[in-house]
């Protein structure tokens, strides 16, 4: 043992050492792995279970998915053993064929187009509404906590429950929305039966579900802005818009960049809203990438595992690229993330 201190400070020192060593880029020449193991065995022992669990529950499916996307695996040629029947695997490695098919066919690109429209409109509307509501709730007014409770409600209801509720509201023949419209003398709206209305409807539900998160996060951000800044600005004669533009928005920056990133990723992969509300229909009008990947794997026959995995990997790549670009842009603007 090179270091002779109590185990606690070893762990602490170890962390410091590694951090410093890495950031400086100076490598230890004599067996860094071995040295690290013998010195920091305690830290490694603490970390090991997590590494194993992550390796099993995240690493294995991920690697398996990537492998399947390079084969022609489907329901008929994968290995399965049912009672007395045992059917061996007969799928083959096909290289990047699936990726070439996906990227050159119209289906992936078409679905991607709508997925982008869906993501951008959901995130921007949700953010705008969340910001407005957060600002309103940040003022001192009577019954503020009641409003907050009510506005958080959509978040508290399990997603599938609220989506089913919306499905009933939207029903063209028996839904409450159309009955209300009929009371006002307006013709029934084909909420989920017309491609354009269906797109509008799924976005509306997702916004409804997403606003509470935005609102709560932004409200937290607002409350961290010191009130003195507003007072000072007011003394200098700044009007409400100027105060919002020059104090609130910059003050919210670190919160809003994070929630926008998270919200973009969630919305891009928002499976339940689309699946439960329209199943991607009418036709394929509201099908986003994840619901289509699910369809390949669970709804068509024979189930196309290869195609589904290919789409899954493409989704992962797209979101990783997005996150990297987003991070770079933020860093250029001086944001630490």
């Amino acid at each position: 043992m090179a270091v002779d201190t109590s185990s606690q400070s070893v762990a602490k020192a170890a962390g410091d050492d590694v951090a410093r060593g890495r950031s400086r880029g100076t490598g230890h020449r004599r067996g860094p792995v071995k040295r690290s193991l013998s010195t920091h065995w305690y830290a490694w022992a603490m970390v090991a279970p997590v590494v194993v669990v992550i390796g099993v529950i995240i690493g294995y499916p991920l690697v398996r998915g990537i492998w399947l996307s390079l084969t022609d695996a489907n329901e008929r040629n994968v290995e399965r053993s049912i009672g007395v029947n045992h059917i061996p695997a007969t799928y083959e490695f096909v290289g990047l064929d699936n990726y070439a098919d996906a990227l050159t066919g119209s289906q992936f690109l078409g679905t991607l187009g709508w997925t982008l429209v869906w993501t951008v409109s959901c995130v921007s509307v949700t953010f705008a509404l969340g910001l407005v509501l957060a600002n309103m709730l940040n003022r001192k007014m009577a019954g503020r906590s009641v409003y907050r409770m009510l506005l958080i409600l959509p978040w508290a209801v399990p997603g599938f429950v609220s989506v089913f509720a919306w499905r009933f509201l939207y029903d063209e023949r028996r839904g409450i929305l159309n009955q209300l419209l009929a009371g006002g003398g307006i013709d029934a709206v084909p909420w989920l039966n017309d491609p354009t209305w269906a797109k509008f409807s799924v976005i509306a539900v997702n916004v409804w579900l997403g606003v509470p998160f935005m609102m709560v996060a932004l409200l937290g951000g607002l409350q961290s802005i010191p009130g003195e800044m507003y007072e000072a600005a007011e003394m200098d004669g700044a009007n409400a818009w100027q105060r919002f533009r020059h104090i609130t928005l910059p003050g919210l920056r670190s919160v809003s960049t994070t929630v926008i990133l998270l919200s973009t990723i969630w919305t891009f992969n928002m499976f339940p809203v689309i699946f439960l509300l329209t199943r991607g229909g009418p036709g394929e009008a509201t099908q986003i990438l994840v619901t289509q990947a699910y369809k390949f794997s669970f709804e068509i026959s024979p189930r196309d595992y290869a195609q589904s995995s290919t789409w899954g990997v493409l989704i992962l790549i797209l979101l990783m690229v997005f996150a990297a670009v987003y991070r770079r842009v933020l860093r250029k603007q001086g944001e630490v993330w």
Partner: protein
Amino acid sequence: MRRGIAATALVAALGVTLAACGSDNGSTGGTKGSGELSGTVTWWDTSTVGSEDKVFKKLAEDFTKKHPKVKVNYVNVPFGDAQNKFKNAAQSGSGAPDVIRAEVAWTPDFANLGYLAPLDGTAALKDQDDFLKQAAASTKYNGKTYAVPQVIDSMGIFYNKKIFKEAGVEVPKTVDELKSVSAKIKQKTGKTGLYLRGDDAYWFLSFLYGEGGDLVNADTKTVTIDNAAGVKAMKTVQELVDSKAAITDATNGWDNMQAAFKDGKVAMMINGPWAVADTYTGKEFADKANLGIAPVPAGSAGQGAPQGGHNLAVYAGSKNLDASYAFVEYMSSPEVQAKAAAELSLLPTRTSVYGKSEVAMNPMISFFKPVVEKAVERPWIPETGSLFAPLVTEYTKVLTHQTTPEQGAKTAGESYRKLLKDWK
């Protein structure tokens, strides 16, 4: 840390789309040496909830009277979910029922995937010669029998006699008459003529057959959905909706169709015997005589209704194979079929049952019997169960004007050719 959360969310979301293929299975065939049958038989029934399911549950549980040591576990799985649910369970080797009520088109598909136990030489196949030929056709695959026919059906026009009388019209015999009758009904009563299901391509078949078209031709290995007849049929259904002769929905079609017809908001629907018991529960049909039924409207090539039905199949991984065979035999026995026919107006699959008085007297059954005999069979190839998914997408797109009838038929044809390699 934030990045950690995002990465976890990413990977977790991806995990949903990645199908890992389980292959564990420790079960062995549960053949008991001798003596009485025992154990539990889980049956997945897919009959209509609220009407048919009650009768089938009672019938299934009565199996215990014959075999006191066998427990029947009745599970009703909604028809729309059953195919996928069974596939998930069967492939992963856990959670699959011992016996499933499989739609005729699913049977060869499941058999081809190795999910079903062959029934030749088991107790399940008793008096095989008694089964109607059309009903038994879908149970055979690769020279073996994988299921026993439970019910057979076809489609016809269900109509509300009161509304027809009010409007002073006769039951339409052709698609053209359907349009004029609907127009008259709208004009005289303000009600819509027809409810056409837009979210299930099975409801499209009688229009397709009516034009002389078909999905595929298995004899010549040709895809036929995109020929002139297929395009014409797509045009026909689109016109029905455009001209307001029919209303449709892209989601929730079954519930909306039944509700609209039962409440007297539409005068007609195309449906089969499985809907009779449910339709009688509607307020318009408190007097059963108000429900009229007629052959599907003819297209330019004549009338053509699809032949459908359900089979009982045994899961190959069942731990109670013997009890399951006995259960299938019981559920398809003449006595049980006669009871189901009497209470639900469902068509038996055994010739002998049609001779029983309570079956012969049922007006719905006597209507559907000749219809079934003339009904158009689908080719019983393993891919039959795969033909609807691509078709329903295009069918809905045509009805909602996202694509033209020509393009819709063409796209459906292309996906069929992808599915059926080397077909024309």
